[in-house]
Every structure is written in C-alpha cells, then in structure tokens.
C-alpha cells in the first residue's frame, strides 16, 4: 500500500464490534418507532392510536437495550456515568462539540420521554390505573408537548451515531458527512418495518398498517438515494467498498433490503397475504446489514 486515497487511512480501528452494531440497530428502532408513533398521534386519525401505542411499546425497551449494550461495550462498564458527570468533581460533563458526549445526554433524555409515553400508552390500554397518566399522550397540551419533544429526541438518538462516526479520523466514516442522514432515514424505514410486523400479530387497524407500509416504501426510496449519495461523496475512498463488504452492501442492503421490497410493493399480487410482511422483514434485515457493513468495513481496511 503506497498510495492512500485519504489521510484517514493512518488511524487505528476503535474495535467497535457487535455491541455497537446492535446498539445502532436498537437505537435506530427506539428513535424511529417513537417518532412514527408521535406522528400518528399528532397527525393521524383516531383509529391510528392503537398503532401509535405499539410504537411507544417498542421504543422504551429498545432504548433500554441500547443503554445496556453501550455500557457493556465500555472497557470499564461501571464508569459509564463518567459520560454524564465528571468523575472527580461530580459536576456536569457535557461537550457540545463531541457527538458522544451529546449523544449520552440524548439517550438519557430520550429515555425519560420514552418512559412517559410508554406509561401514557399503558394507561390508554387500561393496564395502568393512574388518574392523569392518559394525559401523557396527545391530544392534550401536555401529551402533545411530550410527543413533539420526544420525537425530536428520538430523531437525535437515531442520527447522532452517524454524526459520531463522521467526527473521527477513520476511513469511510469520516470521509463523508452523510452517515447521520443515512442513519436517520434508515431508522424510520426499519421502525416502520418492525411496527408493520408486530401490528400484523395483533388486531391493529388494517388501514393504519397499509398507510405505514406506504410510508415505509417512500422512506426506503429516500434511503436508497441517500446511500448512493454516501457512495459518491466518498470519492476515492469508495475503493474501500470494492470488497466483500461492498458486495454485502449491494446484495444485502440495496437488492434485498430496498429493491425487492419495492418490487413487492409494486406487485401486490405476489405472495398474497404475506406480501406486506415479507417486504417489512426484508427492510428490517437490510437495515441491520447496513449498520453491520458501515461499522465493520471502516475497521477492516
């Protein structure tokens, strides 16, 4: 190796492995499901409320799993709180220019909003007999504010990870500014997919599910455009994806996770009843492979 396409090729891999891949996946699901649920609450119809509750039921466990994965990934797990408080003075630790610092806070704040909305959903389902808990969800003023702020936090949780990868000196990650955008869009696509899959198991309104499926396909189309833009923005560094990773990206993400779901969407007669769920499952798996390729390929160049 005598010629390097970028000065990023002299850095060392941080050994972010499966915990981080899974975190990117569950963190994206948490933020995306909350966001879709909030949109349904704020802009949908009354019969969408069941689907929105499902979104909140997914968001909270996913964000808890995310936090656990991140803590396990640390070299010194019991020091996780050093991200939030200075370990010697117990003052607030916050660096607005460090995505990991801001992201740690966003996880905490989003976790609180997820919990509030989760409780609101429980109350509406009659599983939580606390007067006033229903007000934690729209249409009331308090509920609407929670849904709005929580949705913004959710998008932050889903997207900051891509920005974090960009704010390093690793090849691929820091050779494009578009990974945050890609993760935001992908969070929406995998979240819609997971909600479709789980909604099918329960008795949610079919019209709600169909509209979610349509949204998912729009988002997947956008994700395709952003992924192509990522590849173009890499410039000479794109060479790093002319490898098994690139093949996985092409077959696992673009073909399986984007093109085949779109073909199923356009040809509704294929697969009959399983059409929508198959498309959703493929989008979900594609979203996982996308994170896997991005995390690992930049550390194995």
């Amino acid at each position, binding site marked *: 190796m005598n010629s390097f396409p970028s000065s990023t090729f002299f850095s060392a891999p941080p050994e*972010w492995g499966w915990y981080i891949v899974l975190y990117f996946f569950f963190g994206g699901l948490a933020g995306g499901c909350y966001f879709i649920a909030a949109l349904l609450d704020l802009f949908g119809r009354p019969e969408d409320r069941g689907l929105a509750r499902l979104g909140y039921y997914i968001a909270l466990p996913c964000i808890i799993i995310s936090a656990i994965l991140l803590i396990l990934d640390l*070299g010194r797990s019991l020091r996780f709180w050093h991200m939030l408080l200075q370990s010697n003075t117990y003052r607030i630790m916050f660096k607005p220019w460090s995505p990991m610092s801001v992201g740690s806070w966003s996880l905490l704040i989003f976790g609180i909003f997820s919990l509030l909305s989760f409780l609101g959903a429980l109350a509406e389902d009659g599983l939580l007999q606390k007067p006033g808990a229903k007000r934690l969800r729209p249409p009331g003023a308090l509920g609407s504010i929670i849904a709005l702020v929580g949705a913004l936090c959710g998008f932050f949780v889903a997207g900051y990870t891509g920005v974090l990868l960009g704010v390093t000196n690793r090849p691929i990650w820091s050779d494009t500014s578009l990974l945050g955008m890609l993760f935001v869009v992908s969070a929406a696509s995998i979240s819609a997919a997971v909600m479709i899959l789980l909604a099918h198991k329960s008795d949610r309104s079919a019209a709600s599910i169909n*509209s979610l499926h349509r949204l998912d396909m729009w988002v997947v189309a956008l994700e395709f455009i952003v992924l192509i833009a990522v590849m173009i923005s890499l410039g000479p560094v794109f060479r790093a994806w002319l490898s098994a990773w690139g093949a996985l990206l092409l077959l696992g993400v673009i073909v399986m996770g984007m093109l085949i779901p779109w073909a199923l969407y356009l040809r509704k007669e294929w697969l009959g009843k399983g059409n929508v769920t198959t498309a959703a499952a493929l989008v979900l798996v594609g979203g996982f492979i996308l994170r896997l390729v991005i995390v690992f390929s930049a550390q194995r160049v």
Partner: protein
Amino acid sequence: MPEPMGFYTDTTVCIGCKACEVACKEWNQLPATNGGKNTLSGDSYDNTRRLDGIHWRHVKFIEQFTDDRKDGRWLLMSDVCKHCVQAPCLEVCPTGAIVRTEFDTVVIQSDACNGCRDCIAACPFGVIETNPASGTAQKCTLCYDRLQGGLEPACSKACPTQSIQFGTISQLRERAQKRVEQLHQAGEKRAYLYGADDKFLGGLNSFYLLVDKPEVYGLPPDPKMPTRNLASASWFSMLGAVIVGLMGIINFRNRGARSGEEQRP
C-alpha cells in the same frame, strides 16, 4: 507555567536499538504482549509492529530496497504520540479524561477514562489503543510524572544517539531547523521537518525530521481535526429528519381521504 515541552526526533540518526521502547515499558510498567509469549513478525526486525495500549514507543523499520536487493536503505523512526497542539483525541473525549497539561502535552487520565474508545477512532496517527490491563485507552504521557519531578522522559534519556531529543518546543524547533540546513548542505536534500510548524493540528509537540514522504513512515500527509465534519453532518441529519417528517405527515394525513374511499360500498 513551564514552557511547552516536547520531542524532536531526528530519524536520520536512529539506529533501531529500541532502547526507547524498553525504557518506556520499564518506567511506565507496561505489560508484555501475550504475557511475554511474543511472536516474531517474521518479515522484519520490527516485532513490536505498532503503537498500542501497551507500546507507547515503537521503532519503525522501513526497508527500501531494489528488487535485486543490490541497493537500498533502512529508514528507522521511533514513533510516539504527537502531543498535537490541537489534539483530536482530546477534542472528542466524552468523559474529560484526556487533558492538556501545564507542559502543553496531552495526557489520558486512566482513572477517569471509561474505555469508550472514541479517541482511538479520532487519532489520525493511530497512536491510542486500549490497554487490556486497565480496560482504558492509553498512550504516551510524555512521562508526565517524570516531568513534574524535573526529569526528562525515559525514552529520550535512554536514546544513545540523540535521535529522540527532549526540550522546550522553541529550542527544539531551532535545533531541528539547523539540522535540516546541515543535511541539505551535506547533500541530503530530502530532509525536512514534519509537524514542526502549525500547518496541521496547530503543530505537533512531538515532531520529526524525515527524509521521505510522510506516508512512507506511516504518517498521514494531511491529518485533520475530527470536528471538520460536525457542522455539515449535523445539517444533513436534520435535513433527513425534516424530509422523513414531511413524508410521515403527508402520508398519515392523506390516508384519511384514501381510506374513506376504500370504506365506501
């Protein structure tokens, strides 16, 4: 406040003895690789191979030989943390464990680090890695403990050829500049200084005299700060959120009309 301190490494007089590596390991009590069962690289006299959490000095052996091996040269370079004036690792560290000392050097406080490894990805030189003994990110401290006691770092103290020199940055830069001129006069026109000015990262407090391109020594020709991408990446992420949000709103609102049609007999 003391003046900024650092290293000037003249690679042309390094003989590859690795005394610096040994002195560093001894003073900083760094563990052996694989508990002492080290493996040989097999293709070089360099068995350390890279800087990591338990190797804070690494003598690079670069062989430049013709294919018939009739002509060639060795480039030897004792690599170490560059103690950047604008340090990428310090910039991203979310716990505040990485600090700048009164000597203008960059130190990771092992008791504050929680092993998130963001600094490893941020360092453009690949200097930092996890020390398995502590579970934290570690690198050269420029012997902060020795400096506080008025001693010079262990590596430069041990260096038998003065390839590694320790001192104030202004003094070292002056000395290095003279050495470059001397080499130029003697016919070694390729000699130049890497990191001795503020062309990148505000300057390196551990800078080098080299006689070939930086890439040949495994050094980035144009190292940058990680936050160069922060603003653009944030704006693009927000753009993504806005587009997805609009798609969601349009989709869920439109559905009212469409599902109404579907329900008609």
